[in-house]
């Protein structure tokens, strides 16, 4: 035992030391083994669950939106695939680098890159969307050079596509991605991030029908949140597509109407079936391209549209209100008949028009400077004599006039199934008192109101509603765009007696067909059936007067009522041909002989509309 240094130590000492060391060294091993036993045997189930959850990601799938079709089943709004480029969550620095690499391809400037980085900082756990709705060329380049863009992946979504573009923009509205603020609302509790939501028009009105039900899929993910594929043990819950809805719109008539309105800068036209309230076509000018909005419009372009002086987003058929001008005279005539001013044959009030009427201190001019001469009920409407209606207005009186106006409900919203309809206005004494102050206005106001001027205003749809009422001798239907049982759309009758309404048919037919009629130039040549209607001019203190025309066809048993307003269109007689041409288009579609012709015209418009 030649041990140096440890000589004092005996062999048994050393053995004891070694045994003690072995025990001391084994002890921690046993403790650790016990810990492992605890984790792996006693608590294994909870850790297994955790491990499962670790790699399991619940991904909510937004449902495809329901399709929108026209009354004949033509699809007007559909879903098409769109591709976006996203980047997996990664450290901010490498994210910045990845964006820089992508910037050449996606045309992102420094500012946009910074904005994206800021966005990513807020949501570090979820992928960052670098570009939405990329075109096929970029898609191909990215696919080809995938390895050069680490952490990139291409996501395919559905985007909304509006087949007819601008043509049906105001009816359909458009969609946009749901915002985080909206997601918090109870109403949208089952919506997922990135879901499209109706922002206006039918898309907004029937959001609950069109949306459908989201699906859920379970995918395996790695620690960086990259999806690796479906999770074997958990089948996905497939999303349920929203309901398809069918509109009352006839897209062919809509196209024809749009074509007619091409010349009009600002204005609107609406056509409906007076026997059901079904809207057949509805155009507002200027329009916008809803496809631009559904595929992510740039902030600048959005601002430009939003603040455009001609307000392209305004659906003027329901949101633009105008003094109805002479188109309102039939209402005045109806009130007169109700008050017994006219006999059953229309006689009872006659006047001589010498170009106006002196009432109190003011001279109320007729639109015809020389005057109409001797006027009765029939000719006063046919020639739209103001003097005659001033007289009638005086006889009716402001109070009665306004009372009938209010009670008819013609000035209240029609209840059409579109959001944000604007009501018209019928003033009364209280209104004048509030507006001008008591004593600052006189009973002479009724003269203006009776020819549809002054403070009175109606939207084109409300105006069409009045004529639908007249055309059907007093039937009332709520105007609507969703094709449905018309029994749901019946509105209660008004107090006007059918004979008094019927009295208007002859003069209104005369407006178009009488040699003296203000719209005689718009007579349907060669048609055995006649169109009836009424011209109107809305005085516009800010510029040229607005031209109006409301017509229905056929005059004796009307199937279609249409109203048009052309802002700065000067006079109703210049706008009447628009309605005439619409009626011709309608007749053509109905008779089918001209169907092809119109269809041919339509297909050209479809292709131009899509671009």
């Amino acid at each position, binding site marked *: *035992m*030649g*041990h*140096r*240094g*440890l000589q*004092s*130590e005996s062999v048994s000492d*050393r*053995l004891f*030391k*070694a045994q003690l*060391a*072995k025990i001391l*060294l*084994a002890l*921690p*091993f046993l403790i*650790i*083994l016990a*810990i*492992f*036993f605890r*984790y*792996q*045997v006693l*608590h*294994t189930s*909870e*850790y*297994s669950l*955790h*491990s*499962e959850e*670790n*790699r399991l990601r619940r991904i909510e799938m937004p449902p495809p939106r329901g399709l929108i079709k026209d009354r004949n089943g033509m699809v007007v709004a559909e879903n098409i695939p769109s591709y976006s480029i996203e980047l997996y969550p990664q450290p901010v620095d490498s994210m910045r680098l990845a964006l820089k690499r992508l910037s050449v391809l996606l045309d992102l400037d420094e500012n946009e890159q910074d904005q994206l980085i800021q966005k990513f900082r807020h949501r570090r756990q979820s992928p960052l969307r670098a570009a939405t709705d990329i075109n096929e060329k970029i898609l191909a380049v990215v696919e080809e050079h995938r390895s050069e863009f*680490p952490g990139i992946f291409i996501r395919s979504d559905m985007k909304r596509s509006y087949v007819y573009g601008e043509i049906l923009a105001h009816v359909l509205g458009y969609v946009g991605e749901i915002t985080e603020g909206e997601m918090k609302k109870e109403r949208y509790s089952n919506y997922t991030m990135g879901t499209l939501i109706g922002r206006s028009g039918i898309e907004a009105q029937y959001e609950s029908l069109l949306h459908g039900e989201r699906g859920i899929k379970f995918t*395996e*993910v*790695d*620690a*960086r949140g*990259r999806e*690796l594929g479906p999770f074997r043990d958990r089948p996905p819950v497939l999303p349920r597509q929203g309901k398809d809805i069918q509109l009352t719109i006839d897209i062919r008539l809509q196209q024809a109407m749009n074509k007619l309105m091409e010349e009009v800068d600002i204005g609107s036209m609406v056509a409906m079936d007076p026997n059901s309230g079904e809207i057949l076509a509805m155009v507002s000018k200027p329009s916008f391209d809803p496809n631009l909005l559904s595929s992510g419009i740039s902030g600048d372009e959005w601002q430009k549209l939003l603040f455009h002086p001609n307000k392209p987003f305004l659906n003027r058929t329901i949101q633009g209100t105008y003094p109805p001008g002479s188109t309102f005279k039939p209402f005045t005539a109806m009130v007169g008949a109700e008050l017994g001013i006219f006999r059953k044959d229309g006689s009872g009030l006659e006047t001589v028009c010498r170009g106006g009427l002196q009432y109190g201190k003011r001279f109320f001019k007729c639109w015809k400077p020389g005057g109409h001469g001797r006027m009765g009920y029939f000719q006063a409407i046919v020639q739209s004599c103001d003097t005659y209606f001033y007289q009638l207005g005086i006889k009716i009186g402001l109070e009665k006039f306004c009372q009938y106006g209010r009670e008819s409900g013609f000035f209240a919203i029609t209840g059409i199934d579109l959001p944000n309809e604007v009501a018209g206005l019928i003033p009364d004494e209280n209104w004048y008192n509030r507006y001008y102050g008591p004593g600052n206005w006189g009973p002479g106001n009724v003269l203006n109101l009776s020819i549809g001027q002054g403070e009175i205003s109606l939207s084109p749809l409300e105006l069409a509603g009045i004529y639908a009422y007249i055309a059907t001798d007093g039937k009332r239907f709520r105007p609507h765009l969703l094709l449905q049982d018309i029994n749901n759309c019946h509105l209660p009758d008004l107090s006007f007696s059918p004979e008094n309404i019927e009295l208007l048919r002859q003069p209104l037919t005369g407006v178009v067909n009488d040699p003296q009629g203000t719209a005689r130039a718009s007579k349907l040549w060669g048609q055995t059936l006649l169109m009836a209607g009424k011209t109107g001019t809305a005085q516009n203190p800010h510029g040229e007067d607005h031209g109006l025309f409301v017509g229905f066809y056929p005059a004796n048993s009307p199937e279609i009522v249409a109203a048009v307003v052309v802002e700065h269109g000067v006079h109703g007689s210049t706008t009447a041909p628009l309605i005439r041409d619409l009626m011709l288009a309608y007749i053509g579609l109905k008779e089918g002989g001209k169907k092809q012709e119109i269809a041919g015209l339509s297909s050209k418009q479809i292709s131009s509309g899509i671009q």
Partner: protein
Amino acid sequence: MAVVLILTTAGLMMIYSADQIQTIRLSGAIYYRKQLLWLLIALTSFFLISAVNTRALEASAYLFYAIMIILLVYLKATASGVERWLTIPGTRINLQPAELSKIATILALASYLSSRKKRIDTLKALILPIMIVMVPAGLVLLQPDLGTSIIFFFILCGMLYWAGVPLIYLFLLISPIISFFLALVTLLGHMRLPLWGLFFVFLCIMIFYNRIYLMDAVIFTLVNLFTGVLTSPLWNSLKPYQQNRILVFFQPERDPQGSGWHIIQSKVAIGSGGLFGKGYLEGTQKNLAFLPAQHTDFIFSLIGEEFGFLGVAFILILFLFLIHRIVELSRISSTSFASLTAFGIASLFFGHIIVNVGMTVGVMPITGLPLPLISYGGSFLLTCYIAFGILQRIYIERSGV
């Protein structure tokens, strides 16, 4: 030796498994192949070293030690930041001097302790051996590599014990660390009890009962008192990320996405392995890259996940057996230098195993210490095989009892 080979094979298997990730790999390195290459180098060194006489080792121990110290200082002086690598000129082989310095320190300490005639039972006599270990440990700590410096502490305690230093002295030597630890726990208020106070009272009783030299007793008492009192300012002087590391050690749930992530994911991997494991190459935590550093620090979690408790127990028993064999070897070795060296190597392995495995279940702080023979890492594998080479030589020269 068989045990060594089984463990090495197990290590290679697990590194191979760790290579098999389903997810997209960012770095393309295949560790398994690299480790095989390292094993070749390591085995060569094993045979070379085992041919070297222990007397020659003893003679060159201080020289080797000095070279390592110079290397560490050189590295500290030249490298900026956390560079720990030394590239052998002309090759692409990177060495970590810190790993090899463990062996150098063991040899130097063994050489010093075996040359001492008298029994070491005073603090004064302990100063030099402590210094031998503290110099490299301090340099490594500055790198900064907390894990490796902890290993030096294991080596110191183990070899002092084997050299016959009374247990009470070893206890006193560790006591400032325990003091610090308990004071921290008390400070952070994780437990209601003033643990540090209790420990201090216990320490005083121990000192009194064991009749330590008065001078030593006073010094130890004061040192403990100081650490206890100074913990608070020391804690406040730590950088927030350092504080955070310590806090997360106590409560991984504090920061499940950040610092606590490793521990939680490691526990999940181990726990979900169950009794039998998910099967080789089937670990989902690993496959999906939830496990951090699965080739190195957390390779044991991977064993736990894929082979379950049985696999864990198997590996741990092998390790325990290995350590027992080394302790046995140090008992029967012919010279006290050889004996001390063997025991130092046993301490080295023991420290690595306990700290690494303890870390995977959250009972030890995350330090980045590799698991001997199993973790990926060339320098450490080389160190291990050099150690085995020395052990093999000691075995050859053993006194034929």
